[in-house]
């Protein structure tokens, strides 16, 4: 009796995992990718000067550095740069 209940519980858990894997996970990763994409775009617009692209508001985005520096590292990794780009923060 006990073993039967346990098996049922496991089966339900497996069914939930499969459901998650088939439906939720792709959705979740799509959302995550989109989130990162938006974030990268924001970085590009606000800090293009770090990549050597003139930025008309560079002087005013200066004050945003402290809020965003932690994200800068992930950003340049995702942009395909192993090392921080020349002229930018040497975060690694």
């Amino acid at each position, binding site marked *: 009796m006990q073993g039967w209940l346990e098996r049922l519980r496991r089966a339900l858990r497996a069914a939930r995992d499969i459901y998650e894997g088939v439906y939720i996970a792709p959705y979740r990763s799509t*959302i995550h990718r*989109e*989130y990162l994409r938006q*974030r990268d775009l924001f970085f590009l617009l*606000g800090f293009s000067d770090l990549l050597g692209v003139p930025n008309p508001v560079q002087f*005013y985005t200066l004050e945003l*550095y*402290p*809020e965003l520096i932690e994200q800068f590292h992930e950003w340049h990794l995702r942009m395909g740069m192993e090392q921080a780009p020349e002229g930018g923060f040497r975060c690694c």
Partner: protein
Amino acid sequence: MAPPHGDGASAGGRLPLLLDHLPGDLPDFLDRRLLFFGGKGGVGKTTLAAASALGLAARRQRTLLVSTDPAHSTGDILQVQLGSEPRAVVADFWAMEIDPAVEADRYIESVKRRISESVAPRLLDEIERQIDIARVSPGAEEAALFERFTKIIEQEGEGFERIVFDTAPTGQTLRLLSLPELMSTWIGGLISRRKKVTAMGRMWRNVAGSSATEASEEDPVLRALEERRARFHRAREALTDARMTAFVFVLVPERLPIWETEKAVGALSKYGIPVGAVLVNQVLPATPTEEFLVRRKEREAEHLARIERVLGDWPIVRVPLLERDPVGVDALQALAARLATRV
């Protein structure tokens, strides 16, 4: 004392510092709170801005004269030492000179101070390095100048009934005045981007549940950007309000200043900045008398002597004032023939 420059209206030399009675009403173009004097270099905008400001003060208007011209001849023509804070010169009259380089340094310092409070020490050096790069980038001083400028309009100028700006030569000034429009558009773009990021972040946290790190409710980046935009917006409102602001063009009756002023008036109306008046400086008397010419010649002799004194190490060539503007190849060739005359 620095050599005088920009004082195109040299007749009369020094300005009277105490004007007790001025006849008549205020000219219409001075009937605004914010007055910008602009024009080509050397046409006398510094002189006329200072004279107008003193005229306002003589009518018991608390008046602040602000020079944003990097050449800084305001202190020179007033014959007082001016700095980046208002200095009382005569009754109801204050003057100051804003130095873009000093303003940029000041702004950079304030950013560094704020950053040192909120950033991990290991990143501090890197951020400071980055900020120092921004300090020397093109546009930094201009942005800092604009920053101070909006502060004067909004807060520092509060105690004054009139603020007269003596601006840099036309090109720079037009760019400065067009900044709020350009910058707020760009910042507006950043704000809508940032809002998308926040919205996507919220969606991502909803689907990811506890595996995603929780972000705080308020986004400091968005807040900073919105403050910035609000400031640009207010500056723009002030600049384009014809009841409050007027731009006064100064020129001399000569070809190039006319041409430049014509273009500048067009540019200003494009940005919606009201033009108050056009001041034509150095107009000859209706019938120039010989005495007038003699007096001018005496003034000129003093200036020529000064040129000999300060620039005497180099060859000096005197080119005469002609009866007609030398336009066209023939006239220029005729002029070329006179360039050989050394002193």
